[in-house]
């Protein structure tokens, strides 16, 4: 049974915590950084999933088979890195576009939230009007 290196476990925890914290921010740049850090965390986890015994590079011929690291998590992590790379650049472009169109890169409110706020404002406005009418009737 493999056990996980404590340092690595702490680093993992730190990466995930930082990543999720940044993910909850409003600015798209911070969200982007959060996703990058989470991606690193996930990749590190994949590496650790391959077993914690220090392995040497899995190159046939250079290294005896018994000392090789598990190559599968490495292949998976590489693929994941490629994907994260592509999506990071995409998010960057999106953040720039948002900044260009809106003047900021903050995630906006939900459509329903905005609708409810508008309704609330209208109601408040209507209340004020009726109060004013009542006032004017009273003074007359």
């Amino acid at each position, binding site marked *: 049974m493999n056990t996980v290196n404590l340092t690595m476990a702490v680093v993992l925890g730190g990466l995930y915590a930082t990543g999720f914290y940044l993910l909850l921010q409003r600015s798209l740049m911070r969200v982007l950084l959060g996703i990058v850090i989470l991606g690193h965390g996930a990749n590190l*986890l*994949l590496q*650790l999933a*391959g077993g914690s015994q220090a392995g040497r590079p899995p190159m046939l011929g250079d290294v005896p088979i018994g000392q090789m690291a598990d190559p*599968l*998590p490495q292949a998976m992590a590489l693929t994941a890195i490629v994907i994260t790379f592509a*999506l990071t650049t995409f998010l960057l472009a*999106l953040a720039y576009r948002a900044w260009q169109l809106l003047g900021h890169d903050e*995630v906006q409110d939900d459509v329903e939230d905005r609708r409810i706020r508008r309704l609330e404002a209208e109601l408040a406005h209507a209340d004020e009007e009726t109060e004013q009418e009542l006032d004017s009737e009273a003074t007359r």
Partner: protein
Amino acid sequence: MSELVAVPVLLPLGAAGLSMAFGRFADVQRWLGLLVLGVIVVDAAVLLYFADVHGPLVLHLGGWAAPVGIALVADRLAALLLLISVIVMFAVLLYSIGQRITDYGRGTASTTFHPIYLVLCSGVSLAYLTGDLFNLFVAFEIMLASSYVLITRRTTANRVRAGMTYTIVSLSSSVLFLTMIGLVYAATGTVNLADLALEMGELPPAPVRALALLMVIVFGVKSAMVPLHFWLPDSYPNAPAPITAIFAALLTKVGIYAMIRTQILVFEREPSWPLMLTLAMATMIVGALGALAQNDLNRMLSFLLVSHIGFMLFGLGVYDIAGLTGVILYIVHHITVQATLFLVSGLITRYTGTVALSRMGGLAKISPLVAVLFAVPALSLAGVPPFSGFVAKLALLRAGVGVGTVWAQVATAVVVLTSLLTLYAVARVWSRAFWGQVREPEGDPDPSDELVVGTGDTSRGMVHATGVLVLSTVLVAVLAGPLAEVSQRAATDLITGEAYRAAVLGGGSGG
């Protein structure tokens, strides 16, 4: 023979490359796209036939045998869903070509649309056909990455928000997916689905339950299961009609497919799964009530989509052959119907210039054809007898009653209730948009406004493409008998899992 399994994945990818290289020749791109999708439709039909007659077709990529190598597997379920999905993709491509030509003329090329669409097709095919968890992740990423590009093309101010919500939510769920793969690999030492099923049996029950739950969450985000659905009605309605149609029809269904495939193949469970039934009930009710509160036609359809995801989760929750037969039938029916409804909504918008139901009226007089095109899929969605939805829903209801637990029967009652709410929701659209006073179409004074989007011409290409899809929904109802039989065989395969495991792990040489 087994090479045919690679066609739906590799052909569109290669064609996407060509399509990108020929970015300046609009007609080349269009014909290439239609040709490739046409070939895949035929290929998927052949795959379905072979899988049904001779059992699952397996291709071990590069000749490396599973569980070490990557396997592509076409069993009945995968081939059936692939066939339906590609038919819908073909029709939607036809529609969007029609729309493009109507709006911008024949000569102009939309450099990115066609390649990205083909890449999306490749991702969807890979998701259906893949035999291991990590490739499922790759398939989702291919699919989602192309969908990010499609949803943010020609960004206006309000599309940026939609794109952001969609991208961030999908990316977070992808990170969770990757984490889940890491944990699965750490626990079992394999990511091959067939092999996982064997390895999971040797683990203590607690980690198995945790992994199952993690998979439910990951695929729950992808398939818009309540309470993880919030991103969908916020993002889908903002994309152009054909793109919304293809997202609504395929992306969430692929999530459901992944959920079914992983849960049933990998984990052992008794019929009637309380957790999934509860989630299904929540999804149905929240979606349907959300739909009733909407004034925006596309948002309403998106909420209906969420609610009907609940039907599929319900079938999975029943967790026996009858339930799964119902789910498979329901997915087939819903893929065609949901795509059609969004395409029709695109047509409606072009006549009225608005997506606000309160500003529509008298469409039945303006265009009786559009009224018919809307009525058929709408009634089908609500499950009114002669249409495809009825067949699928009946199968689900019978399964829900048949399994015999109290929880399943409560959920069955919710299914009936949600069907009524759906009927009410589409009837509301009908009375607001198609009946009543004929209204002047509205021009678009403010492009950043979310409701009034401006009128446009509709070309014959767009109407024909929608017509083809409406016919295919009718066809699903006409062919209900054979479809139900195939679904039942597919469901039996799923529950026993023997054929799948034997085909993937037993073959080896792949020839």
